């Protein structure tokens, strides 16, 4: 009974969070961001089924997202012209089924091998489909895409989905269901064997499983959920274009999953939330946000190979041993100069980019023409950098201290 509560409580928390978010932030902008997050979460989780769970590095996952979305928009159009009549709440399912169909077809030949061969096929297929989408105008609508209208379906308990907030609650429901099912998938034989095949495809074959079939099933499931995300996209934006199935979108989902943390189920959710926020908020303050995103990404790959989720999980041991507190002070000591250093770096970058006028930064007004400003910034940056370097060993020691095993298990540790 206790374990059941422990198992279910995160899910109830997740559901409550999804439902209550708009109670705290109800501006048009906030709801717009929540909708983006909802789509991104499902999409990133579906990507993780491939790379994180199944060991398949795909450069073309947007294909299933996009194809699902295209069919969803076409379904909306059919509803609008009364060829079909069903509530639009099922649209993500339409997207999912088409994503599944596409994945079944493409997966039938691409999942034979993992590794580089799979990655390259996904790249080739992705480029092919993205390019054909511009050629086959009648289905894909060329570069302008196709657009529908979500308000023509039969009302769902009186809701006609005029407002984005109504779509949010629908999306939240779908996100919850999709997350739950994707999580449950990891707990099934097929899901577990996907991990096994990721780790060691050869051995999997000697315990009775065809690595190809195992990959194929994960691939198809990932295609389905990517299609669901595409369907949600169609409902939210009421249109879809070629860019939603091209390499840029594929790259973005890779970024999300990786930055969030591939090895953890929750990782892609974190990645989706962080990247959506960066995309929508950061881009407001600076034109250079893509540069910062690139830097963040490269630094993450270098220093946090297991992503943000991995970083958080690193503290699990210290936490269970009640030593998290001893880390707090060293973190502050290193964190403050490090943050100052980063802030000054950003100031330098922005200052060199700003055109003509002065840069307003954190309440300061910095002038590009003043040599003094530059000199001061550079000195401050150097000082902050040295301070960071100086305090880093302390942090490292505290870290080792907090994680030091007094060897309670009795047996030798590897």
């Amino acid at each position, binding site marked *: 009974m206790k374990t059941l509560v422990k198992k279910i409580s995160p899910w109830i*928390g997740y559901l409550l969070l999804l439902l209550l978010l708009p109670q705290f932030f109800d*501006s048009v902008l906030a709801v717009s961001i929540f909708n983006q997050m909802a789509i991104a979460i499902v999409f990133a989780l579906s990507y993780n089924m491939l790379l994180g769970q199944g060991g398949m590095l795909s450069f073309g996952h947007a294909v299933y997202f996009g194809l699902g979305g295209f069919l969803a928009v076409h379904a909306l159009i059919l509803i609008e012209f009364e060829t079909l009549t069903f509530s639009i709440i099922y649209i993500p399912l339409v997207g999912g089924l088409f994503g599944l169909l596409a994945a079944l077809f493409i997966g039938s030949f691409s999942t034979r091998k993992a590794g580089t061969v799979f990655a390259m096929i996904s790249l080739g297929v992705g480029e092919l489909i993205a390019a054909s989408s511009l050629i086959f105008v009648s289905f894909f609508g060329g570069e302008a895409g196709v*657009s529908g209208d979500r308000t023509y379906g039969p009302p769902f308990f009186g809701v006609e989905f005029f407002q984005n907030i109504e779509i949010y609650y629908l999306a939240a429901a779908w996100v919850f269901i999709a997350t739950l099912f994707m999580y449950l998938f990891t707990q099934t034989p097929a899901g577990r064997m996907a991990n096994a095949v990721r780790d060691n495809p050869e051995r999997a074959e000697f315990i009775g499983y065809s690595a190809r079939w195992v990959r194929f099933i994960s691939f198809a499931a990932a295609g389905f959920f990517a299609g669901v995300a595409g369907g949600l996209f169609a409902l939210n934006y*009421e*249109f879809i274009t070629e860019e939603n199935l091209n390499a840029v979108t594929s790259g973005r989902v890779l970024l999300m999953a990786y930055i969030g943390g591939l090895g953890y189920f929750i990782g892609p959710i974190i990645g989706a939330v962080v990247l959506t926020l960066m995309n929508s908020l950061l881009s407001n303050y600076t034109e250079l946000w893509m540069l910062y995103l690139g830097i963040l990404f490269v630094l993450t790959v270098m220093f946090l190979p297991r992503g943000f989720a991995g970083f958080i999980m690193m503290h699990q041991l210290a936490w269970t041993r009640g030593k998290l507190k001893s880390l707090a002070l060293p973190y502050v000591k290193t964190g403050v100069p490090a943050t100052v250093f980063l802030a000054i770096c950003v100031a330098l970058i922005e200052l060199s980019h700003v055109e003509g006028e002065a840069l307003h930064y954190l309440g300061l007004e910095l002038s590009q023409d003043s040599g003094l400003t530059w000199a001061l910034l550079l000195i401050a940056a150097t000082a902050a950098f040295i301070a960071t370097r100086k305090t880093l060993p302390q942090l490292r020691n505290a870290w080792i201290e907090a994680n030091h095993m007094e060897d309670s298990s009795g047996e030798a540790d590897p």
Partner: protein
Amino acid sequence: MKMPLGKLPESLRYILAALALLMAGQSQAQEPIRIAFIDPLSGTFASVGTSGLTQLQFAADYLYNDKGGILGGRMIEIVPFDNKQSPTETQIQFRRAISEDIRIVFQGNSSAVANTLHDAVTRHNRRNPGQEILQINYSAVDPILTNEECSFWHFRFDSHAIMKLEVLTDFIAANEEIKSLYVIGQDYSFGHVVSETTEQMMAQKRPDLEIVGNEFHPIGQVKDFTPYVTKIVSSGADAVLTGNFGADMVSLARSIIDSGLEIPIYTFYAAYDGITATLGEDGKDQIHLVHNETANPIPTEERRAFNLAFKAEHPDRDVTQPRIVNALSMLVKAMEESQSTEPAAIASALEDMRFTTLTGDQAWMRADDHQLFQSLHISVHTDEGIEFDADNSGFGLRTIHTVAPEDNLIETSCRMRRPR
């Protein structure tokens, strides 16, 4: 799934709360009139977008804010929104503009984006009566926006593709030396409009002129245009017509020039933002462009003063799109006339408006389809007789042919539906 999910939103809530504070701080007393500018400000297409933004901001300050504002002292504030030239981002930024209570949206780059924005605006206006948004299209030339898909809330301040082609094909048709024409374009809607319309018009205007090639290439994918140029050469064409823009335009023109082919190239977008500098001496007298608003010779003192003031403030930039200034000026005129900043009132005032631009052009906003009519010019890329060059390269556009607004009137299939 051991991590408590409840921790996740904590940080998110702070960020959003900070944002809410920030937004509250922005909307205060003595209300400025806020106008959204949604165009690419980062990414590959950023140069055109930022250049447009600079011009709009400059025009607002120079023409109005520095002179005490409009409507009895209200300032115009241009709020930039970066859409990265992506339809999806455009929607996101549009929602953000709504969230900031902005009612007027400027947008120009890419017809695909304009179409999506147009759809979004139409849907929003239908679903939120009383909170309508006005779309000011200063550059997207897809004809359908003022034809089949026209709307009361959309106004176009650039001549659309067919209007420009009419002028261009007239000009080519009048040149008896041109016996054959090669059409090449990007494989997307604008490229197709150019190709099909040219063929139709040429068949009418010069049945003897042969279209010796009609080629599409994938947009932004071609590394080297030489193979295409080989085909142009072997076709023996006397002229080339293309709707290419950006890197595709530069590469195509360079390849043609490099292969020693000295035939005129008729274009829409072969100037400014680095293109003029790159073509330089090699493209002299060969590159032709159809556009509004003469750049050289400068027709009026007002325009000269404007350009000089702009150059003084932004030495590395040019006044590439005077139509942005026209759009803003006509918008302000409509506000002054209606004494309102409500989109519905502005739109009604804009309909049928006649306006004299800084260049001295007579412009007319046709009520039937919300399409602006003004004179169109054909200019040539040269360094002779250039007062205002492009990219500080000494080269620029000199107008060699002008068509008066009454001569480029064109029919519309628009059936305007106005709100009661």
